[in-house]
């Protein structure tokens, strides 16, 4: 298969320059890590800016305007302000848990990006468990929220932390079931395999067409996992002031804040990988290459396809983010019992049904459903 392999190229260049292959690999290793941290942070910051601009547009306002063109520097100002702001832990809080909470949330979200690919070889590690790694790691986050809620020595925080735990646990299951149906169809858990299995016919081969029910379940559950508005009970402003974040300021709050938006980007990427064909364009790019008579191994063609792929996945991700933001500013919040009802009595049975249906269709129509 085509696709560029940056690691191999770099290692080749370095060994060509006289380094041992071990040293060359060691030089390579930190680069993607730094890159992914930077990319995710920038992605989350762009999200905060989008949130402001889209909410402003939906409310007939202008939003940030004077900080840079279209207020694009507002996230920078946000970060600068939060970094230099003094952190004030409340009296009688548990200092260790109070600091550990946001760190755990933040780290778990960032770890998930390890297996999120931007292109054929553009990911940090193509581990076999792929999508289940994401689900497993992201369910660590509620522990951090619970810690934060408990350690704040505040009743609103405690209620918020408990709500976060209840919500995450109930929505993990439909999320996992929806992902499981995809894994069943793709015969693999690896994110790379899942995408390449959707590559053959462009738009027509995307999983959203084969898994519409799963798509709906996954989107709802992902929104709930991100604590976005119809399901933002843990930080419900009108009820719990700010939930588990009530007592947080400064850098600790920045971790929560950045973490929640990174989580939104992650959800968007997962949706685009699982259902919208990942970095694939709506038309099969390889066939276009064939038609134009370009060999798939041509360097400039590879670069172009890689660029198009990154653009495609980012567009899909931010389309999801846009929808989530617009939804946030359009609908009211559900109540805690309704939230749990929706999770356990609606999404869970539907998810199981979807799984059964996928299995049945896989047996009946193996050519279409990844026999």
């Amino acid at each position: 298969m085509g696709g560029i392999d940056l690691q191999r190229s770099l290692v080749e260049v370095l060994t060509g320059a006289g380094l041992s292959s071990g040293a060359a690999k060691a030089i390579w290793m930190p680069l993607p890590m730094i890159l992914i941290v930077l990319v995710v942070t920038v992605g989350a910051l762009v999200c905060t800016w989008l949130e402001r601009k889209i909410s402003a547009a939906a409310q007939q306002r202008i939003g940030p305007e004077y900080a840079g063109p279209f207020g694009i520097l507002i996230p920078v100002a946000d970060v600068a302000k939060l970094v230099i702001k003094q952190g004030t832990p409340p009296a009688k809080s548990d200092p260790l848990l109070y600091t550990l909470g946001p760190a755990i949330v933040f780290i778990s979200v960032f770890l998930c990006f390890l297996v999120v690919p931007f292109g054929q070889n553009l990911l940090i590690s193509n581990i076999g468990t792929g999508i289940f790694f994401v689900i497993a790691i992201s369910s660590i986050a509620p522990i951090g929220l619970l810690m934060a809620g408990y350690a704040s020595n505040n009743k609103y925080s405690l209620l918020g932390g408990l709500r976060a735990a209840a919500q995450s646990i109930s929505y993990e299951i439909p999320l996992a079931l929806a992902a499981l149906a995809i894994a069943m169809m793709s015969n693999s858990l690896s994110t790379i395999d899942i995408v390449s299995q959707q590559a053959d016919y462009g738009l027509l081969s995307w999983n959203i067409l084969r898994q519409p029910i799963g798509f709906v379940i996954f989107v709802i559950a992902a929104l709930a996992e991100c604590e976005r508005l119809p399901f933002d009970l843990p930080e419900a402003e009108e009820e719990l002031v700010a939930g588990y974040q009530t007592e947080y300021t400064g850098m600790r709050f920045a971790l929560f804040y950045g973490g929640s938006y990174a989580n939104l980007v992650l959800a968007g990427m997962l949706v685009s990988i699982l259902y919208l064909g990942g970095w694939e364009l709506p038309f099969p790019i390889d066939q276009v290459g064939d038609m134009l008579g370009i060999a798939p191994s041509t360097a400039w063609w590879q670069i172009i396809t890689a660029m198009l792929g990154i653009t495609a996945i980012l567009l899909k991700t931010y389309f999801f983010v846009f929808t989530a933001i617009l939804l946030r500013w359009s609908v009211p919040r559900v109540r805690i019992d309704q939230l749990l009802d929706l999770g356990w009595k609606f999404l869970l049975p539907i998810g199981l049904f979807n799984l059964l249906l996928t299995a049945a269709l896989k047996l009946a129509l193996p050519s279409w459903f990844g026999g």
Partner: protein
Amino acid sequence: MVMIETKAERMVINMGPHHPSMHGVLRLIVTLDGENVVDCEPVLGYLHRSMEKIAENRTIIQYLPYVTRWDYLATMFTEAITVNAPEKLANVPVPRRASYIRMIMLELSRIASHLLWLGTFVADIGAQTPFFYVFREREMIYDLFEAATGMRMMHNYFRIGGVAADLPYGWVDKCEDFCHYFLPMVDEYERLVTNNPIFRRRVEGLGTIGREEAINWGLSGPMLRGSGIKWDLRKVDHYELYDELDWDVQWDTGGDCLARYFVRVREMRESTKMVLQCLKQMPGGSYENLEAQRMQAGPKSEWNSMDYQFISKKPSPTFKVPSGEHYVRVEAPKGELGVYLIGEDNVFPWRWKIRPPGFINLQVLPQLVRGMKIADIMAILGSVDIIMGEVDR
């Protein structure tokens, strides 16, 4: 439903006076069992400003600027009751044109109050955006108010025996424009909110008050009309010239938060229709060209008769409240706003008892929220529509 018995310690949580959704400075001491509300006790008085006592050593003219601070969202109504009470006691007649101007102002004020209620109610449930939409229309009403009275909120516009000034030229046209613009906007709010399944599930069947119960609690306004009682003081008391307009009392039989939502939204539409009728029927020269008619007719004209010159005839700053006592009420957007006035032939009233609708309506809150979820407190409180300015006075 059978619940598994769990032994959990109850949590006493203090909501307010500084809580994002406690409409001003209401404080609720809520006892929680997990997410369930076991008990709720409202604590009042954080905005108490001795409004009744202040009235006892102010002339009516001096007191008028104060009253807009009771219910600062339906300011025209507080002014109306403040001039109506001495007017009725001293038998001061109000010219027809002034009465029509008053009705227009009152109905616009009702729309403004209901608009803000809609925004905060939906925001209490979690949807922030309608809040901005209602402010758009509310600003327009306040622009109209500013042009006519000089201030956006604290109008000081009503006077004993009339209003402070006639409408400025062009005002009637713009007011008409607003009414025609406003009705489609209400449709838009309804498209955004009314049928939203999340909204429906949050408010349907929540905070239900039965017919008898509503009467026994002394509720008024949309709280009462939402419980299936067709009671509107504009029809009952026949004050101002509401009888000359063609309108219906808006009511609903649900008794829950949704019914109260419907009543208020319908009242906004009805009020818009009433304003349009008022603008059409307004007597005293065609529209607001009094000045022109006076210029044409010369200084000592028939226009000087009471119907036309009341504007420049200022009520005496030393108007004496005659001896006697009585109770006067108007239908404010929140309910029955009344004043019990005792005069003793002095410039100051001897007693000025205010019956604020919010205060009476609020007392039903603990009963409504008991046994509900914590999130329901906000929805129910929002549907009661209280303004702490008039609750605490």
